């Protein structure tokens, strides 16, 4: 009797602890995935209604591209033999690359739409200048793509992680959740940077820039195919993200001088206060 009650007490305690850990770890995953994008949203986008609209429209365009690519994949799946696993996997990989291409096509379509809207806004405003510049729109559009991409990748996983379960019970990796979170974070930021660079390339008609963005996106998707060999996918993706960050910074008009000025101004402010 006594041992039975001890056992049930232990079981109860284990349940409590595991659910607590799950919530904590889920919250840490939520924070790591969505922290930066949420911060970006609150500090740069939330105050300006036009930017919010452009953000949501960007999310919508990404969604449209996903819809079309899923349609193509679904048709391919239905038309093929569902028992052949390697074929199914091949079709999935094809789906991944096709989706990437379609996302870039829709990014271009969104660019054209925003250009037109911008011209319209400028035409009817007082001083012939629109309320928002193409660079700002590029950033917001990229963030919209990134947030939607991140949300779609991560939300189901997050909600599943709140429930009971054991990670990797069938022999899969233990690090599923944290790597998913990190990868999604990298992709969100990458989409933002790609948005900036892409729009800039379109503005200046530098087609090699556009080709580079598309190529890098394909590369990142391809690297993710190496999962669960996380050493092969995560560090290169983060490297690419840092590179893209630097490229986006310089392409949107930043320079070492402005960085310097920012630092010295901060120092001066700190000293004077």
């Amino acid at each position, binding site marked *: 009797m006594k041992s039975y009650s001890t056992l049930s007490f232990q079981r109860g305690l284990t349940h409590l602890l595991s659910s607590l850990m799950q919530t904590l770890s889920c919250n840490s995953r939520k924070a790591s995935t969505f922290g930066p994008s949420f911060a970006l949203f609150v500090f740069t986008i939330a*105050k300006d*209604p*036009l930017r*919010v*609209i452009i953000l*949501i*429209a960007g*999310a*919508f365009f990404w*969604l449209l591209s*996903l*819809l079309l*690519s*899923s*349609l193509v*994949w*679904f048709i391919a*799946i239905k038309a093929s033999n569902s028992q052949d696993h390697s074929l199914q*996997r091949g079709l*999935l*990989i094809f*789906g*991944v690359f096709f*989706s*990437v291409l379609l*996302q870039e096509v829709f990014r271009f379509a969104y660019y054209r739409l925003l250009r037109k809207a911008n011209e319209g*806004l400028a035409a*009817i*405003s*007082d001083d012939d200048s629109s*309320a928002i510049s193409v660079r700002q729109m590029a950033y917001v559009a990229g963030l919209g793509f990134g947030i*939607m*991409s991140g*949300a*779609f*990748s991560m*939300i*189901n*996983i997050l*909600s599943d992680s709140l429930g009971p379960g054991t990670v990797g019970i069938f022999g899969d990796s233990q690090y*599923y959740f944290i*790597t*998913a979170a990190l*990868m*999604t974070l990298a*992709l969100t930021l990458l989409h933002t940077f790609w948005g900036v660079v892409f729009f800039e390339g379109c503005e200046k008609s530098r087609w090699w820039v556009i080709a580079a963005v598309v190529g890098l996106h394909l590369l*990142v*998707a391809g690297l*993710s*195919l190496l*999962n*669960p060999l996380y050493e092969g996918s995560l560090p290169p993706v983060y490297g690419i993200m840092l590179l893209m960050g630097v490229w986006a910074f310089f392409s949107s008009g930043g320079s070492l001088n402005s960085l310097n000025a920012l630092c010295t101004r901060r120092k001066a402010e700190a000293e004077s206060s």
Partner: protein
Amino acid sequence: MNTSDSEEDSYNERSALVQSESPTIPSYNQDHDMSLPQETDTKRRRPVSSGLSEPGPVEREQASTPDGEEEELTLKYGAKHVIMLFIPVTLCMVVVVATIKSVSFYTEKSSQRLIYTPFEEDPNSVGQRLLYSLLNTIVMISVIVVMTIILVVLYKYRCYKFIHGWLILSSLMLLFWFSFMYLGEVFKTYNVAMDYPTLVMIIWNFGVVGMICIHWKGPLRLQQAYLIVISALMALIFIKYLPEWSAWVILGAISIYDLIAVLSPKGPLRMLVETAQERNEPIFPALIYSSAMVWMVGMADSSNTDSADDRRRNEGGARAQEGVESEDDAAQGGRRRYSAEEDLEEDRGVKLGLGDFIFYSVLVGKAAATGGDWNTTLACFVAILIGLCLTLLLLAIFKKALPALPISITFGLVFYFSTDNLVRPFMDSLAAHQYYI
């Protein structure tokens, strides 16, 4: 639960068409769905216009200023007004989705049905299910049409007291009965022990403050919060009691009805609005969500208008573009042709009928209820917001009455079915292998 008629009526009223408060303004085009600068008069009742799908009227005052300036002002404020509608619609949807995901009561299928959907769907036979859902839809839409016509007739024959009584009865039911049910289910879900005296006090306070805020005077934010809450409650009732397939067909049918009722010359809504215009009266909204930044009643002359502008400047805070706005206010104040005693300060907000809120939330709530897939919910949410945005854009371009339901509901339905059937398996396979696109 066989709900009574007043629930349906309250729903009808809520999706009322609201007309501009100042129909005397030249070239006023009232618009079905949303109103831009609009006066709110919470003291004066505006007649409710019918049926279900009138999401509120979208209205814009077209003043006698030159077109270019008008357009610029419209578009400058356009983005702000879109956001002023995004936020309450989002909040309502968040409340509904949160409830659906946590309180299982609203997703449990019970044998009780609304009297408006008398045919029970048999899950085993596809053909019969389809037929019965169509029949249910026909019944529901006819009920709505009949209610609308009754309302128009009542309004035409000036039975204002009857309409008032109807409105009060329906809000009473929502604020007391449905919120009591809701609270009961939340307590059950979280296993909270509650005694009746405390519960009575909570519900009493909630209900009475709600009645006062909605039908009389109250702080704007509180009124908005109450309107959002009752829209959410109503949407939850629909989600629970409408059978599966019927709900989707009804959503589609409502959008089509909305389109017809607003745009066709013999539509009941249009007739109602025209009657109200002829009489130079504002229409009763059963409940119209107003996102006015400030509204005041009883400013008589220009000196007061200035002080009102000051007040508005303070309250508008960061959002107001102060110079343009106060100038616009003064100009608009001048344009109004009310008698000095009754001059009402105009509010700079947008209005949207609660029927819109309800149906958007029903769509998103059903997406959340069936399947447990968050991607579908998110996709429907984005689709509805974009539909709302497009509707406002079309309004700015065409400057005539446009219904708010069709575009959003169409996008919502398309995205629901395609995400559920196409995107879900794709994303699930990708997540299983941890491929990222």
